[in-house]
């Protein structure tokens, strides 16, 4: 039995990293998580759409409104400003792709200098995410100045809840990116870290895709 035990021990070690599909656990779990997030944002977006046009009082997203006591409120949504922030967020996905490529191919030809540096692209992605959040903070503040808060009407409740949840997801992503950047600066990320960056990228792209849905359904369709 002693030989069997040694063989068992050897094989046990081999099997530690055995997976049925060959995929890493965390990647599968991330996809499952994204599945649940789809249902969360699906519910939030559906609620916004179901409640669209059902506010009994303004202000409204796409048309001006005068309250019974004669106060004038402009249409709330400012499509040009949000188009700019949407562009920034879309660009961040490109930066994320380049960051992942830089981590995967670290040290290979074509990945020298700033444009081949994962630090640069991680910082760019985080900066673009932070810029989007800055736009959102500006947007929210200006809406409040225009007389729309989360308490004002059904539009305010459903709009701030939906975009606020998205913003919170971006904020978590920025925190994640900055953590990864910190690790990169501290010890340098290489191909063995590609999985971690890949999973972060999955999350980041998902948050980006959700914004495309929100921007189209909430802002562009009147």
């Amino acid at each position, binding site marked *: 039995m002693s030989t069997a035990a040694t063989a068992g021990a050897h094989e046990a070690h081999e099997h530690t990293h055995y997976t049925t599909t060959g995929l890493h656990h965390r990647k599968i779990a991330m996809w499952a998580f994204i599945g*649940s997030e789809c249902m969360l944002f699906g519910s939030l977006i559906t609620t916004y759409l179901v409640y669209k046009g059902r506010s009994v009082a303004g202000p409204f997203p796409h048309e001006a409104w005068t309250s019974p006591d004669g106060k004038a409120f402009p249409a709330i949504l400012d499509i040009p400003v949000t188009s700019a922030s949407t562009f920034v967020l879309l660009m961040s996905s490109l930066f994320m792709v380049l960051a992942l490529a830089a981590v995967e191919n670290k040290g290979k030809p074509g990945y020298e200098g700033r444009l081949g540096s994962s630090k640069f692209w991680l910082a760019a992605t985080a900066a673009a995410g932070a810029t989007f959040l800055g736009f959102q903070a500006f947007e929210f503040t200006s809406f409040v100045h225009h007389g729309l808060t989360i308490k004002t009407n059904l539009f305010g409740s459903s709009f701030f809840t939906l975009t606020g949840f998205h913003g919170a997801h971006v904020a978590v992503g920025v925190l994640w990116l900055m953590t990864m950047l910190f690790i990169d600066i501290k010890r340098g990320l290489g191909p063995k870290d590609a999985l971690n960056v890949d999973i972060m990228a999955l999350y980041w792209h998902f948050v980006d895709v959700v914004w495309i849905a929100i921007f189209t359904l909430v802002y562009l369709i009147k």
Partner: protein
Amino acid sequence: MASLAASPTHASAASTSEQTGLWSWLTTVDHKRIGMLYLYTALFYLLVGGLEALVLRTQLAKPNMGLISAETYNQVFTMHGTTMIFLVVMPLSAAFFNYLIPLQIGARDVAFPRLNAFSYWVYALGGLFITLPIFFGVAPNGGWFGYAPLSGPTYGGGFNMDFWVLGLQILGISSLAAAFNFITTIINLRAPGMTLMRMPMFTWMSFVVQFMVVLAFPVVTAALFFLQFDRFFGTHFYEVAAGGDPLLWQHLFWVFGHPEVYILILPAFGLVSEVLPTHSRKPLFGYNVMAYSGIMIGFLGFGVWAHHMFAVGMGPVADSIFSVATMLIGIPTGVKIFNWIATMYGGSLRFPVSMKFAIGLVAMFTIGGISGVMHASPPSDLQQTDTYFVVAHFHYVLYGGAMLGIFAGLYHYFPKITGRFMSERLGEWHFWLNFIGLNLTFFPMHFSGMLGMPRRIYTYDAGQGWDLFNLMSTSGTYMLLIAGLIFAYNFFTSRRNGALASNDPWGAPTLEWSIPSPPPEYNFAQIPEVTSRYPMWDLKAPDRMAGIKHTHADAAVIAEAHAVPVHEETERRTAQELGIPMPFPTIKPFMVALGIVILFSGLIVMHAGNFPLAMATMLGGAAFMVGSLYAWLTSPLE
């Protein structure tokens, strides 16, 4: 039973690797110990929820009883439902997921051992969060379904529903984290050779359930966030005056709530699908169709939610669609019933207590299933909505179905978990008292319901024809209590004094029976290689394997191939001796869970009016959670 008893060598060695002490339980990441934590906690809540039922039934024993006030009654029935669903049946299923899935698929643990501990601690702390308020008279009082606007700020202004809304959010985190974990585990940690269509049926049903959790829980999370924002931040989601619609709550809640009932029943279906073939000594009839019908139930389960809402008047089109969808779901469920019967047909049957409970499920669930199909028809449903007929229906599926299935599983797997048998004699008492008690409790409710007795009333006048039926229901409840106490006594004394059990005391077909009872911390000294659906029967009862596909078609190759890798492990060595790396125990998942509960508690403080303290609590909780999370993620697993 004599032939099933083991040589005493196993049990004496059984506890060598077991750790003891509170700290070891707080820090454990072993799926088996976490399964035990789920089991004990859920059994405790079963007692709590059972006592709540006893209070309700005692109040209803006779007309115009004055045991408790209407307000207390509201709190007790709300907590009875909430407790039984979220703190008893789901966690009992989770106990089996934890304990069995890795063993059934030939894995050493789940994919994310620490996330698994996290799920448990969120459940444990969330359970306290939602249960403790009953001692201060502020327990949730708006029903387990929390219908707006009764659960909203206007009509439910006290702390009561705060605890419900926030408690359910907390418990949702636990279920979701566990679901990500088990999906990954089942996809990625199956032993070599274990294809999807070779997975034990319990693992199959658990697999379906995890997907349902992943897709259903986020919907109620969104609905609860709306309610939470209405209550705490002054939004108008469910407020009619502002244009909001309480029906939004009903739709979102039941989009979650109906899949939830299959989340509760499918694990029990899985358990009886293990018990019936074992004690029929015959392969499960129509294995493939059983798996497909489980998937079908999971799929259709998302398309029938509005049959809970026929009474709100959705119009003939919506009513028809949901009516047809609901009738359709009877097909895969019926297929399962017939397949279980066909499994037993022509088998060489044995009737230990687990088998009795399993057959009990088949019979009792069928009654609940038939009254369920009656509800699928809107005209019939309109007569039954909000009457005791509905109460009878869902107790037949949840008690007669889920709980009997779980009891079957407990008696079946007790020898694997503890290395000892539960007393069959006490088990017989438990089963028969349970069986008679549940029918005495719930069958008369069909009649009181048909005679028009509404649900959720705290008392009633005499002379409406309900008196006798209510008295019968109440006597049945006391019988169930006695049955429960016998079970508890049997469970706790058998852990130490039960007859010793071997690796495979029942002659069962699947991998978990190839390792010692109780299993060593690493489960499998050697990861098995699977060549068929029933590896243990390949080894011990090849005569039952006719017609079961193997990796190799040639009988001689089969005999050689399966006899070698799937062997019974009889020696008990430590992980260290075998060189198997085990995950380190860690307190960090507990700390993250604690941070989450502190964070949510801040909102209660906010409702109490102390805004600075509320902010301090929430920020403190969030900081503690994030800090612990970073500590967790930066420390090595093993």
